[in-house]
């Protein structure tokens, strides 16, 4: 592969998969509010 093609491939992988990794990380840091269905939904104090 030519250097420019390799460079673009690395940039594409880093931005898109990096974006996915960041999005997953963000989700992991905000765990799900388990079972917050309407009837179990306590008004926040």
């Amino acid at each position: 592969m030519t250097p420019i093609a390799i460079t673009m491939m690395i940039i594409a992988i880093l931005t898109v998969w990096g974006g996915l990794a960041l999005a997953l990380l963000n989700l992991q840091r905000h765990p799900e509010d388990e079972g917050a269905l309407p009837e179990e939904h306590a008004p926040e104090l």
Partner: protein
Amino acid sequence: MSNAAAAGSPGAAPAKRETFSSRKLFILSAIGSAVGLGNIWRFPYIAYDNGGGAFLIPYLVALLTAGIPLLFLDYAVGHKFRGSAPLAYRRLHRVAEPLGWWQVLICFVIATYYAVIIAWSLMYTIFSFTEAWGDDAEGYFFGSFLKVAEAPGIGFNYVPSVFFPLLLIWIAVIIIMVAGIRKGISRANSILLPLLVVMFVLLVVQSLFLPGAAEGLNAFFTPDWSALADPSVWAAAYGHIFFSLSVGYGIMVTYSSYLKRRTDLTGSGMVVAFANSGFEILAGIGVFAALGFMAQAAGAGVNDVVTQGIGLAFVAFPTIVSQAPFGALMGVLFFGSLVFAGVTSLISVLEVIVAAVQDKLGWGRIKASLVVSVLVGAVSLALFPTATGLYLLDTSDAFVNSFGITLGALVTVVVLAWFLRKLPLLSAHLNGISTIKMRRTWMVLVAGVVPLALIYMVSNEFISKISTTYEGYPEWFVGLFGWGMAGGLVVLALVLTFIPWSRTSKAHLDPEYQSIMDEEEAETAR
């Protein structure tokens, strides 16, 4: 889920809305929907044809400025108004209801032909062992396999080798649909999506080891920076993002209506959007590595063999399967991926219709999903596995994309943003429960960038389709199944809006939704 118990018995307490049992399952299902045939057979060619490596820039810009904002719009509508597309838009504002029906009808058309491509892929998974196509993949596909008629038309010359696999696909899909959100859709996605990823990664690895793979990747990634100055390249990026993310035709509205109340919508949406793009990049690498091999074997340049869609899947890939070492394995991985990617998208398209029928008629899950899937399946089986089916498929696909999905998305965005001015309300809903807050930026993108991009796309399509008859097919054929079908969807959407909602429908009887509204009102008042 025993929702069906409440079906059709007036006076009984209405069934509670189904939910995804976890955020993870919703995300898996939404990715399953977004990752479809287009990711595998469309993206690689679009990127190659529009600047190669340089395409990454318009692609990411389109993703961030239009794709993701539109995805959030769908999430906000579905989640806030907790209904199928027609019900959610009706709850947003009564005049918006036809938008929902339009989206339902678009899904009806898509489901009928999308299943056919999955059926072909299923057959080709088996053919990978026998190499049924011999040394003429193209002649085999159009001639021996599809038995395509000389001229477009509507005929009833059924082709058994397409009819029976299609029947099989419909039976499988009906079972998934009847089983419901948790036992059907969630479960199917949690099995098929990981399987799809594993198979596709193996396919990419195998492709990368083929001689000539590097040449293919050179063709795919070498940037042509001058493309960035070409407006059509930017239009291609926006166009691709719209179709790739499955936004604007009810799917994400429907899926997000099954989410629990306090769910991180934007955080989940980011994962879905980037996972979809991540898969596309992977597909680009795999497809072009394989095309590089095919070019080398033919002693030609990559630009001579490059193709997309049906030509890529059913002509180029069979050729590669015949020539590559361990070709049968490669064929199974490729066509199996198409089947799995297709099924997880097809069920999301069908769910739009099932949910709408459930809401409008107050039917239970089993009844609605059976009636809808059997009806759509019957239409699909009656019209497409015939000698003229390919012409119909091609025409429906082209017109439902341009004057269904794209035009529908444009009208929806303009009505919501400019006429009903609901974006502040929806933005507040998104920000109330989500980790990634977009506020004004989101509104500017949805009200400004998205409609501009859509107007450009729709007018381009209109000009190209009005100036010459599509594909040179007979005028009556394109008039009826292209323009007529697309226009018919709009008329039918209005008709469906005027049919009154059943007394037991969710529009009249939904204590669950009412209690949410009351709570939200109380919270605002506090």
